C-alpha cells in the first residue's frame, strides 16, 4: 500500500487556484523532495497532507485514511523555528509537545512520556540539552529538537517544511544526514529550495508550481560514486528529461 496517495487534488484560496490537479503516490521509506518556486504551493501541499487545510476537490489518503485520522502516523516539522525564541520553555518541554493528547495524567507528564522524549532527543543527539532553554540553542540545534518533537509520536512519515532555511551550512549538513539515518525506517517528505543538498539525499522529486511533476531519481543516483556531488546543471537536466 502507498503511504501517501493524492488523487486529482485541487486547492483554491478565495478566488486563486493554488494547486491544480495534483496526483502523487509515495511508497514506504521513500525520501521525497518537494521543490518549486516561492508561492508555487509547496507548503500548502504539505498543510493539506497534515489536514491543516482542506482540499477544494480531489482526495488525500495517508495509509488509506483521511489526514485528520492519521495524526499519530505523521510527524511534522514546521518552517521558521526561529520564531518565539524568547519563550521560556525547556528543550524537553518542547519535545513533549509531540505526544498526542490522550491517555494523559491529571497533572504534568507521565514518566513514560519523559523517557520517550529523552529517547527522541537521543536520536537527534541532543539529549545533553534537555534542560536548556530553547532560545539558547543555535538554529541547527533547534531544528533537531523540532525533529525530535516530531519523532515523539513514533511517526511512520516525517514531513518537514524548509528544514534548513534558517541555519548555516554545517547545520544543514547535520540535519540532512540525520534525515538520511531516519529514512532507514520512516518515509520522509521535505519541502525545500536547497536543490544541491536535497537531491543528494532524495529518492524522488516533486516539482510543484500550481501543477506538479514527479521524478524518480533513485536510479540516477547509482551512476554517481559517493565522493561525487550532483551539480545543479546535471540535476536540472535530469529532472528536465521527461522520457525516462
Amino acid at each position, binding site marked *: 500500500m502507498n503511504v501517501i496517495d493524492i488523487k486529482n487534488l485541487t486547492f483554491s484560496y478565495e478566488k486563486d487556484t493554488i494547486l491544480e490537479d495534483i496526483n502523487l503516490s509515495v511508497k514506504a521509506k521513500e525520501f521525497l523532495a518537494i521543490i518549486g518556486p516561492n508561492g508555487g504551493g509547496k507548503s500548502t501541499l504539505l498543510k493539506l497532507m*497534515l*489536514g*491543516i487545510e482542506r482540499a477544494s476537490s480531489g482526495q488525500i489518503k495517508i495509509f488509506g485514511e483521511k489526514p485528520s485520522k492519521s*495524526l499519530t502516523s505523521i510527524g*511534522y516539522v*514546521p518552517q521558521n523555528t526561529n520564531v*518565539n525564541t*524568547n*519563550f*521560556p*520553555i*525547556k528543550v524537553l*518541554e*518542547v519535545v*513533549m*509537545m*509531540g*505526544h*498526542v*493528547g*490522550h491517555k*494523559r495524567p*491529571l*497533572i*504534568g*507528564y507521565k514518566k513514560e512520556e519523559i523517557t520517550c522524549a529523552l529517547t527522541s532527543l537521543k536520536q537527534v543527539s541532543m539529549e545533553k540539552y534537555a*534542560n*536548556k*532553554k530553547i532560545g539558547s540553542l543555535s538554529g541547527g540545534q533547534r531544528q533537531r529538537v523540532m525533529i525530535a*518533537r516530531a519523532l515523539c509520536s513514533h511517526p511512520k512519515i516525517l514531513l518537514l517544511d524548509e528544514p534548513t532555511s534558517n541555519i548555516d551550512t554545517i547545520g544543514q549538513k547535520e540535519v540532512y544526514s540525520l534525515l538520511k539515518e531516519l529514512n532507514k525506517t520512516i518515509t520522509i517528505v521535505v519541502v525545500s529550495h536547497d536543490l544541491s543538498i536535497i537531491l543528494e539525499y532524495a529518492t524522488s522529486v516533486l516539482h510543484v508550481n500550481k501543477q506538479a511533476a514527479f521524478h524518480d531519481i533513485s536510479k540516477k543516483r547509482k551512476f554517481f560514486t559517493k565522493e561525487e556531488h550532483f551539480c545543479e546543471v546535471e540535476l536540472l537536466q535530469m529532472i528536465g528529461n521527461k522520457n525516462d
Partner: protein
Amino acid sequence: MIDALHYEFIQNAIIAGILVSIASGIIGSLIVVNRMVFLAGGIAHTSYGGIGLAVYFGIPIFLGASLFSVGAALLISFITINQKERIDTFIGLIWAVGMAIGILFVDMTPGYNVDLMSYLFGSILAVSREDLYFMIALVFTIITFVTFWYRDILAVSYDSEYALLRGVHVKLFYTLILVFSALTVVIAIKIVGLILVIALLTIPIYIAEKLSNSLYSMMFLSAIISTIFTLFGLFISYNYDITSGAAIILVSAIFLVLFLIFLKIRDNLKYS
C-alpha cells in the same frame, strides 16, 4: 505603619494586593507569552462600559464590570480567531466604544457622585469583604486552570499550529486565556485601576521572563515580584497619601529601570 495593620481596611488592602498579584502574575505571563498585551489593554478599557452600566442600573460594580469585560474578551477572541486582517483596528474600536458606553451611562445616572477616579486609578483602601471572596474564588480557579491544563496551555502558547495538530483545543484555550485576563483585569481595578492595569500585567512579568527558563517558573516568579511591588506601593500610598495605582506602577517602573541597568552591567561584565 505597624499600628495601621490593626485596621480592617488595611488588612483587606494587603490581602487584596497579594491575591491580585497572584492572579496578574499568572495571567500576565500568559498574556505576555501569547503577545496579547494589546488585547488585554482593550479588554481593560472596555470594562469601563460595564462599570457605567452597573452604576446606571444599580447592580454591583464587580458584577457589571465582570460581565461586560468577559463579553469583550469573547468578542475579541472571536475577532482575532476569525478576522484575518486589521485586527488591531477592531481592538482599538472596541476599546474606545467600551469606554464611551461607560461615560454615557455614568452621565445619564441621576445624582451620580461616586468618585470615578477610583475605578480609573485604583482605590485599594476601599476593598470590601465581598471583594475579597470574589478575588479568592478567581485566584483559586486560575491556579486550577494552569495546574491541570498546563501542558495544553504551554503547547497553545508556544506553537499553536502544532498544538492543533496534536489534538489540543487551541481556540478554546485561547478564549479561556482571554476570559481569565478579563476577570483578572476586573479584580485589579480595585488595586491599580483600569487605566494602569496593563503595567501590572507586564512589568513584573517582563522581569520574571528574563529570570525564568520555563513558563511555570515565570508565572511563579511574576506573582512574587508583583506582590513585592504591590505591597511596597501600598506602603508608599498609605504613608504619603498617594493614589494606590500610581504608587504601585511607579514603584514597578523604578524597579524595572534598576533591573535593566543590572542586566546591562551583567552582560558587559560577561563579554569584557
